[in-house]
């Protein structure tokens, strides 16, 4: 018996909707099996992971705060992947945004108020954009593979964050902890809902809306998609490939930078050695799970934020390693990609001819 793919006459509309759901179900089943193998109460673990965080008010607020950066970044990455630009270094662009935006509160701690906050946000966006412009420039000018350059820059950015938090930016009154002095109330994103939902949730919703409008209703959105699907057609259409590469990188870098400054000027509250638990990588999964569509990304981002929340809960309640969350996320991406194939192909089980002959004779 052998699995074969058979091309469908046209892409299946049913599978477009079903494939992400199928991927989630398969990932949950595999997750269940992993827990059974690890001799952990699998049902309780799944409950802790995916249901328990939804039962309390504070945890739903926390969920939104975790989903906000992931969705913000994923919306930007979707532009890249549609244009066939492989920016996988959003984690580094997030760090660059956090660094750039933190310049003001670190060096001018007494300057507080809405105008400072607005400046911090803009600087965060600019930091992310500048950092993403490096691989874009190297790709356009020197033909350097952006997958590798963006990823190398993640390591560089994280080392810079580590250096800044431990040495020049360290709070002298902070008992030697590797973090800056806490930001002042006028340098923090205001809480807009409940006890902990901050303004960045609005940024996230705006980004989703604008991205939806851009992809569906503007020429730029159309050009980006043409580039991904048929670079030759785009060239004949007179669209500039280099311009597209810059655009995709600047949009995704800017959004990742905004996510970065919103983390330090939000839930974290100061600058420290780690500014993100891997949101930049999770966003890649979210972009694909959401089928590179803003609305899909919104839903996918909430699910993956849930896995972060659940991971923390399960770690406390059952002593499960926090790496379990990463295993789930990686697995989910595999399933998403495999299920997406079903949109264009049908799976067929083929018996090799020899085997058939033997069974016929028997």
């Amino acid at each position: 018996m052998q699995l074969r793919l058979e091309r469908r006459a046209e892409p299946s509309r049913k599978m477009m909707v079903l494939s992400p759901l199928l991927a989630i179900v398969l990932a949950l089943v595999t997750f269940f099996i992993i827990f059974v193998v690890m001799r952990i109460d699998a049902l309780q673990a799944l409950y802790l992971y995916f249901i328990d965080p939804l039962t309390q008010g504070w945890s739903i607020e926390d969920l939104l705060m975790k989903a906000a950066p992931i969705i913000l970044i994923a919306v930007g990455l979707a532009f890249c992947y549609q244009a066939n630009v492989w920016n996988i270094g959003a984690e580094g662009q997030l760090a660059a945004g956090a660094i750039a935006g933190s310049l003001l509160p670190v060096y001018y701690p007494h300057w507080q108020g809405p105008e400072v906050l607005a400046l911090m946000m803009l600087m965060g966006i600019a930091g992310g954009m500048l950092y993403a412009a490096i691989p874009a420039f190297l790709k356009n000018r020197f033909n350097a593979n952006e997958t590798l350059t963006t990823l190398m820059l993640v390591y560089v950015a994280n080392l810079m964050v580590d250096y800044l938090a431990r040495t020049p930016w360290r709070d002298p009154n902070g008992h030697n902890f590797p973090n800056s002095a806490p930001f002042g109330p006028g340098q923090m994103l205001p809480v807009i809902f409940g006890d902990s939902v901050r303004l960045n949730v609005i940024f996230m919703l705006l980004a989703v809306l604008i991205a939806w409008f851009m992809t569906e209703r503007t020429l730029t959105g159309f050009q980006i998609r043409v580039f991904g699907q048929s670079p030759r057609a785009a060239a004949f259409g007179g669209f500039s490939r280099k311009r597209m590469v810059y655009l995709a990188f600047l949009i995704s870098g800017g959004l990742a930078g905004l996510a970065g400054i919103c983390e330090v000027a939000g839930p974290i509250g100061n600058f420290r050695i780690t500014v993100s638990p891997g949101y930049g990588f999770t966003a890649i999964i979210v972009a694909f799970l959401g089928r590179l569509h803003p609305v899909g990304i919104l839903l996918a981002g909430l699910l993956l934020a849930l896995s972060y929340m659940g991971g923390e809960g399960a770690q406390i309640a059952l002593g499960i390693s926090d790496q379990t969350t990463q295993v789930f996320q990686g697995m989910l991406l595999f399933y998403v990609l495999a299920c997406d194939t079903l949109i264009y192909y049908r799976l067929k089980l083929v018996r090799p001819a020899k085997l058939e002959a033997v069974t016929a004779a028997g």
Partner: protein
Amino acid sequence: MGLVEGILLTIITAATPLLFAALGELIAERSGVLNLGVEGMMAVGAVTAFAAANATGYSIVGVAAGIVGGAAMGALFGVVVLVFATNQNASGLALTLFGLGLSGLIGNSYSGVPGLGVKNIHIPFLSDLPLVGRPIFGEDPMVYLVVALTIGVWYFLFRTSGGLVLRSIGDNHASAHALGYRVLRIRFLAVVFGGACAGLGGAYLSLVYTPQWAQAMTAGRGWIAIALVVFGTWLPWRIAIGAVLFGAVSILQLNAQAFGFGIPSQILSTLPYLITIVVLVVISRNRALLKVNTPASLGRTFVPDN
């Protein structure tokens, strides 16, 4: 042991895991499959090797387990990318995320446990020669394995008919398929071999280089290995030179950290990553040089039409 001798020795040990992983990736890429999951395969190889060596007390069992762990990850990638014809970029990323998570999950209980280590060989007289004695005749056995592997990979690719078939599949899968070669089967074997090599590289890290297990101990070496394949323009001996150069950079920056020079350690630690970028730029800007040896079907999916 003199200072120069010591530095040469450590440069070679730093180059070895990179070279293992890069040679595996070379075979996969020559067959037309771009596997960005090397980092994940290395991480899994590192933890399975450490666990097996720790359980049995034999480093050799650890090495075998590293190979098996890496090969299993390669097989997983092969199934997803070849049977389900998924996008190779994204699937490789998934493999890295999955592998790093899985290695953390398995390795959690080994954190801080001392490892076995592997003894360097000692040949009377030869190993005691000044300067060249230790670096050439007194390394650990896996260094000699990676040298043999480099020669073997070169021989296979350019001196055997199997290598010719592999390269033709990487250059034009449609023609190779029309000639009756089993494109997907051969690619699958190439990817599994790549995984096994990455697993060896990981095993070297946790058994020899720093005999212990730590979360994210691969520290981007899998990605550097992928860059090395580009740096070496898909030729084994150039990749080997590249690995030694990278080994040298990482050792020199470590020594610079020890001496201080007033430069923060984190800034020095960025050097291997920055140099990877610089090297990529220098190689990639020469499009003619790249075109000669880049497998023409690299990264493109293939679905047989019957």
